[in-house]
């Protein structure tokens, strides 16, 4: 493995700066306009619009983002661990929760699948009529 060139490091720093900058800007806009949306999500949408205008993803930003998203489980590990320390939920709460997750996910999976298939079929037949 060759050590990264100064050029590459500059790309990474730029990528990190873009991420933190977008988040700060998103939070500022969110608070200024008293938006109900989390500031980080505003930042994400700002960055998405920026990238669409720019017409691509800068190399450093792509690399830093991929790395950060790989580390994502580590970032929410402290929050996730807290579930083992929750004491204010009753047994019936837990059962309702597990049932909701299990059956809710299965039902929603099925409905989304059927809906998308139906919609895709419609457009496909519309396209074949065009031709």
């Amino acid at each position, binding site marked *: 493995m060759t050590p990264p060139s100064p050029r590459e490091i500059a790309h990474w720093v730029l990528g990190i700066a873009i991420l933190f900058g977008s988040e700060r800007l998103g939070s500022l806009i969110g608070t200024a306009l008293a938006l109900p949306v989390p*500031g980080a999500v505003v930042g994400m949408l700002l960055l998405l619009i920026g990238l669409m205008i720019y017409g691509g993803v800068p190399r450093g930003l792509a690399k830093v983002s*991929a790395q950060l998203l790989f580390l994502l489980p580590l970032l929410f590990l402290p929050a996730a661990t807290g579930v083992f*320390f929750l004491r204010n939920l009753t047994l019936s709460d837990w059962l309702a929760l597990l049932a909701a*997750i299990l059956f809710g996910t299965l039902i*929603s999976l099925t409905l989304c699948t059927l*809906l998308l298939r139906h919609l*895709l079929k419609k457009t496909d037949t519309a396209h074949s009529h065009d031709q």
Partner: protein
Amino acid sequence: MISEFLHSPLFALPLSICAFWLGVLLYRRTGTVLLHPIVTASLLVFATLHTLEIPYSDYQSSSGLLYALLGPAVVALAVPLKQNLTVIRRAGWPLLVTIAVGALLAPAIAVVIALLLGAGKSVLLALSGKSITTPIALALAEKIHATLSLTAAIVVLTGVVGALAGPPLVRCLGIRDERILGVVLGINAHAVGTARALEISALCGACAALAMGLCGALSALVLPLIIGT
């Protein structure tokens, strides 16, 4: 002296990193979604804290650095979203409609089931973020005053259930279209589902990443308005 060390970030951070690293190793070895890194890692951290009698609040407050990186991680989601935007051009509005409907349907069904079974308000609030990718779900949980830990656990569990059940379920419905499988996994099983979709094919993964990003952004825009009232 030792107890001070155990309650400082100098202990909490390496503990999290080691647990995560072991989790990743085990996940790669076994390749089953059931052992997603977060499952192993959170159990390891819990076992350590429990054995050393460290209060969770101490561990949590000394993990500030990790919490601080969640915001930039949300922003980073824009990158895969941009990279996979071309999928929309090919599948167009059916994709967008399904994502919009799914973003509302997934939490709504779960909340209704929990409501029928008589769950308390904290459970219902935490369930509303169920199928959103974790960093966005946590940011949202802060906004709507849901318990962060419960939200994180629900999101992880949903991801695992969705990623396990999704592919066989879609096959059972007689569907071979990888675009459909990808989108459905992205909507219902967020990052865990997207990782699963990437194993199936690049197209499937791209659809999942796109669905996950759009679904998360849409939920963050709409859910506070519904719950806030």
